[in-house]
Structures are given as structure tokens and as C-alpha cells.
């Protein structure tokens, strides 16, 4: 390495920054742009309480994106998270219909456990039966939605008490929405997890299952764990969504696609092995900020999805283009050689 250092031109700060941001660069640019646009549209956006309210609103998507990131980065998909959120809210309502005195913490834990259980099943089916996770979780989505409504006869039967809803709706000390520290905790937790041994082996598994296996990684367990964590994250999102907006039979509708979009927007490679969890969370924030911007600018409700579609394609398209250039630039330091067999 010492020989290399002399041959290499010292990278500029800009380049070093780009390298540090890595594949997620486009999402940070997007996030910054949208945040600036928000500031121009609505100068009050950056007042503390407004900003906290924004984070609170974004929290469920950020948490779902974090879970989804874990699954995507090890080379899989989780299409069932939206259904888990819906099922979670309905199950909570159903629980309270039967046990009105249930402590909120118990209900929350039940939801987290149930989400984890759904993830466990998806993970086991994907790894043990070798069903592509796209299909497994698609099936899981049908099963969960069907089962939960079959059970409740179509709509939830109970209401959610204020204590349970506090996490999604209430505030601590009268100013800090509980969802914010929860979101922060998940974010920090996921960041640390990805820096820890588990995170590194997860990435390696997504990159090359064979290499990971032959290096002693328990790939099945790692993958299943990712699914379980994604399920738990969805369970937590269900608590927040249920808390934020109360009982609804379609609480999680569309969340699976939003979460995947957020993760991909965050520069994470579908197929696994590359991308950072911070990028994924930034993707979720960008998406939510975009929704808010469209709301505040009064874009016709109907055209909102068109704008969303265009921006997602453009951002990901630009990301793909940008990224390959960045990669080449980094590659061509004199002592390293042309990528071999990377075109696959």
C-alpha cells in the first residue's frame, strides 16, 4: 500500500466526499433539492415543531425502508410489508375488541412479534424451499390480507385506545412526537447493525452467497434474520401507523412499493450486495418530502402520482448513470486494473 500512495494523486475533498457518500449520492442531491424547494415554498417548514411533525409523518416509511433495506441488500425482496402493516393495525384493533384493558406495551410487543413471525415464515420459505422471495412475499401478502379479513369478517372490530396510539400520535414532554425518537432509534440501530459483524456478513451474503457460505457465514440464518427484522420493522410501522391515524382496513396499502422505491432511490442495488442503510433512509425521507412538497404546492391530486413516477425514474436513472462514472473514476488509479468480469 505504501507504494501505491505515492503513485496516486491525492483525491480532492469533493472526490473524497463523493466516495464517502458512495452509491447514495443522487439521493442526497434529491433530498437537498426537495428540502430547498420546501423552504422556498413554505418558509415555516424549518420551524422546530413543523420539522418534527414532518419526521413523525415520515417515520413509518423510514422504518419500513430500513427493514426493506436489510432484505434487499442480501439479495431478496419483501413485498409483504404493506400487508403486515394492514394486518398489524387490524390485529391490534381486534385485540382491543377482545381485551379492552390490554396494556399498550403488550399490544405493541404482540405486533412486533407477529411481524417477526410473518418475516420468519417468508424467510424460511425463501431459503429452505428456494422460492424466489418476490413470489414468497407476494404469496405472503395475499395470505395475510386474506387471513386477517377472513378472521374479522372484513373490517376490524375494535377501536385503538389512546394509550396504544400515543407512540404514533402523542408527544413526549409536550413537544417531541414519540415517533421521532422511535425513528431515530431504529435508524441508529440499523446503522450500528450494518457496521457490526452481522451487517457486513449480510452484505457479503447478498453479494456472493457462495463466497459467504465458504467463508463460514450461515447464509440461511443471515437471510432469515433479515426477513424477520423486516417483519419486525413492519410491525413497528403498524404500531406507528395505527397510532397516527387509527383503525383502518387499508392502513398499509401501497407501503411495500413505497418502501422498495425508497430503498432503490437510496442507491441500494436491487439484487443485493451494495448500498447503505443511511441512503435507504434518506430515500424514504426524500419520498416523504416529495409528497409534502406536492401537497404544499397544491399539485392536482391526480397528477401527483405522475410527478412521483417521473422523479423516481429520473433519480434512479441518473443514479445508474452517475454511479458508473464515479466507479470508473475510482477504479483507474494507476495501480489498479480494469474491472475483470464485472460486467455480469
Amino acid at each position: 500500500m505504501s507504494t501505491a500512495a505515492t503513485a496516486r494523486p491525492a483525491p480532492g475533498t469533493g472526490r473524497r466526499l463523493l466516495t464517502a457518500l458512495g452509491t447514495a449520492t443522487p439521493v442526497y442531491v434529491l433530498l437537498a433539492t426537495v428540502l430547498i424547494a420546501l423552504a422556498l415554498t413554505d418558509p415555516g417548514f424549518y420551524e422546530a415543531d413543523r420539522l418534527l411533525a414532518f419526521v413523525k409523518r415520515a417515520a413509518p416509511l423510514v422504518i419500513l425502508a430500513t427493514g426493506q433495506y436489510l432484505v434487499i441488500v442480501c439479495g431478496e425482496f419483501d413485498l409483504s410489508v404493506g400487508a403486515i402493516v394492514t394486518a398489524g393495525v387490524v390485529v391490534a384493533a381486534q385485540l382491543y375488541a377482545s381485551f379492552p384493558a390490554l396494556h399498550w406495551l403488550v399490544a405493541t410487543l404482540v405486533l412486533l412479534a407477529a411481524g417477526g413471525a410473518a418475516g420468519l415464515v417468508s424467510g424460511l420459505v425463501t431459503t429452505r424451499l428456494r422460492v424466489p422471495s418476490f413470489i414468497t412475499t407476494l404469496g405472503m401478502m395475499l395470505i395475510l390480507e386474506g387471513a386477517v379479513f377472513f378472521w374479522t369478517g372484513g373490517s376490524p372490530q375494535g377501536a385503538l385506545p389512546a394509550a396504544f396510539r400515543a407512540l404514533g400520535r402523542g408527544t413526549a414532554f409536550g413537544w417531541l412526537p414519540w415517533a421521532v425518537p422511535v425513528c431515530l432509534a431504529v435508524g441508529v440501530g440499523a446503522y450500528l447493525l450494518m457496521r457490526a459483524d452481522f451487517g457486513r456478513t449480510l452484505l457479503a451474503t447478498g453479494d456472493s452467497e457462495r463466497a459467504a457460505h465458504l467463508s463460514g457465514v450461515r447464509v440461511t440464518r443471515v437471510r432469515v434474520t433479515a426477513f424477520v427484522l423486516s417483519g419486525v420493522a413492519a410491525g413497528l410501522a403498524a404500531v406507528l401507523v395505527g397510532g397516527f391515524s387509527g383503525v383502518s382496513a387499508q392502513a398499509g396499502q401501497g407501503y411495500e412499493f413505497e418502501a422498495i422505491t425508497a430503498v432503490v432511490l437510496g442507491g441500494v442495488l436491487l439484487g443485493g450486495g451494495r448500498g447503505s442503510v443511511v441512503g435507504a433512509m434518506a430515500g424514504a425521507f426524500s419520498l416523504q418530502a416529495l409528497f409534502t412538497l406536492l401537497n404544499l404546492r397544491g399539485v392536482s391530486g391526480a397528477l401527483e402520482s405522475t410527478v412521483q413516477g417521473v422523479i423516481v425514474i429520473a433519480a434512479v436513472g441518473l443514479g445508474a448513470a452517475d454511479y458508473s462514472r464515479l466507479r470508473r473514476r475510482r477504479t483507474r488509479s494507476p495501480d489498479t486494473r480494469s474491472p475483470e468480469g464485472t460486467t455480469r
Partner: protein
Amino acid sequence: MRPRSAPLTALAALLGAALLAGCTSDAPADGPAAPSAGGSSAAADGSGDSDFFDQAEYDRQLELAKETPEGPKGKPWEQMLRPEFVSTTAYAKKGGGDAHLCFSNAGVFNPWRQVGLKNMRAEVELHEEIGKFTVLDAQGKDDKQISDIQELTGKGCDALIVSPNTTATLTPAVERACEKVPVIVFDRGVETDCAVTFISPVGGYGYGAAAADFLVERTEPKAKILALRISPGVDALETRWSAAKRAFDKAGVEVVDAKFTDGDPARTKSIVADALIRHGEIDGVWMDSGATAVAAVEAFEDAGQEVPPITGEDQQDFLTAWKEKKLTAVAPAYPTFQWRTPVIAALKILAGEEVPKEWTLPQPVITEADLDDYLKPGMPPLHYAMCGCEELPGFPEKWGGKE
């Protein structure tokens, strides 16, 4: 041979079969009637709200809403407005025996339809003369409902009840069915009058206008109104909106935003919160249906603002919030008791009794005054109060409620 030639062989075989069997059509014998504009709905051929506005129908509905219905008191599902009776002796079931009723349902994809179907099943239970009750669920697919109707006409039903998924698209299938069995259409109409009776409450204009008039009454002129709609393109909801828009325009009230919520409470809260930021304050909230009314109320609370006059629907959670939070509110209803009526109508038809050609049910509006009559404690949050189901067997457990 690998199955590579299978499709070709199959094609040949089918062609052969076709030649032997001859050609038949499931389209109505006289060809599909060109649906005329008017009736209870109008097909839109472009954008804009005005496509859904039909002045004559609008006027009619507003008048009907004021009239007192005929029929037994306290049983709104048997009441009717301005009935024009038609004879049904041609359909009278000959000989005794149990009746076989069939029902092609658009789906149970929302709580309103779920409550409705429970009402209908309970009504069926009331009548011992109904031997068999077959329900096919189209799960919201027009295409499947067309097939379902075709399937049901071939099943020996004595009468066919249809709750169409879409107005325009089911017309040919219903026309075809009319040729074989007496058909009862309810909720949404179809663009044909071949059905023996069409059952529906007063309609979307009545609903939308009732809500809008309430807001106009409770707010200052130049008030800022936020309109929350579920999703575009649903005819019943579009008529509600067009009537409301008309009322607002007339009164000079400003609709600052008309947004689609997708029926998602989280989205609703975001929209209301953002609207509060954009416009400073909101003086009234109009909703085209009640599913997300509570979320809207909460959004005001979370923003630390007083809840302005708001319209909702007869859903339990909204009525509860109304009472507990002492809201200024009104709840027009699109009553679920209408699901009972088709069964009653079917039995009348099979007995040869006359029924109205258009069986227009009353469409009560819940106001402050009669809120307590409709709010039943112990019912689930997504229950619809105006179900007319209190006396039905299995109430309230079957509806998910508690004594």
C-alpha cells in the same frame, strides 16, 4: 413430441368443436342497447366535474330529499318515494317450493359493503320461504361480475339480485340476464330499464348537497372549505362532489383544496395538516364519504386547532368522535339498510305483488338532534349506523358489536 404443438392442436380441436356446435352469443338478443345519457348516472367522456352534473336529476333528488316516503314507519328499508308500481304477475313463482335467490355482488372491499352484505344475509334468514341463497363475489372486477351474472343465470335462480360494480359496464350482462330471470338491481344502477325494479336511496346529489348546505349554513361567506375525496372516477362519489361544488359556488364559499385521500387515514391527516399550513386556517371540511372523517378531525387536534364544521358519514367512529368531542357536524348517509330491500322486493316479485319500477328509499341525514338515536355503544368503529339491522337475528354479534 414435446408440448410445442399443443396449442395448435388445441386450436384445431376447438375450431372443429365450434363448427359442430354452432354459434351462440351471450350478448342480449337484440344487440346491446346504446345506453342513453341520463337515468341515474351519466358516462363521462372527458375531464372536469361538470360531466357528472345532470340538472334535472339534481333537482329531482333535492325535491325527493324533502318528501316524506310512503310505507311502514320505522322501517325505512320498506319505505319508498314517489313509487310508480309495475305488475309482476308474470314473474310469480308457480307452484310451491322454496325460492332460490341469487346475488351477484360487486365485492366486499369496504366496510360499507361488508355491513350491507351482513344485512342482506340476515334478511334472508328472516324468510323461511327462501330455500337457497347463492352469492357470487366479483372482488371488484367488472369482467368477473359479467361472468358471474352469466353463471348465475344458468343456475336455476328464481330471481337475481345485482349490485353492479360499475354502471356502464354491466349493462349488457344485466340485459342478457333479464331475458331469463327477474332481475333486481340496487345501489348503483345500470343503463337499462329491463330490471323489474331498481332500488336505491335518493342519490349522490342529495348526499353531496346535504353536506354542502350544512357547511354553507355554519360558515361565514368567503369561508375556506377543504374538500376531501376518496378517489377520482367513482361515479357515486363524483355526483356527490358535483352537487356540493354547485352549492358552494352558489353561496360564494371558497373551496381552497380538493384532494384525494385514497381512503387512507394517514394520508388524510397529512393532507389536512399541509392544508392548514398552506391556508392558515380551514373553516369547514367537506367529505364525499366518511371513511377518513375521524382522521381529519384528529389532524386539526394534532395541529392544535379547533375542529371546524365538518361533514362525515354514519360510520360509528365518526359518530362517537362527534359526540365525545362535541363537534359541529352533520352525517349524510348512504344507508346500508338498502341491502335488505332487494330481498324483500324479490319475494314480492315471486309472489306476484307489485313493486315500484324505481324503488327510491329515503336517505336520512344524521344531525345533532338525532345523533343519539343512531349512536349505539358497543358497535365496531367501522360499522354503519344506518343499517336498519337492530331487529335482525344475530344483532349485534354478527355485526361485530357487543350488547
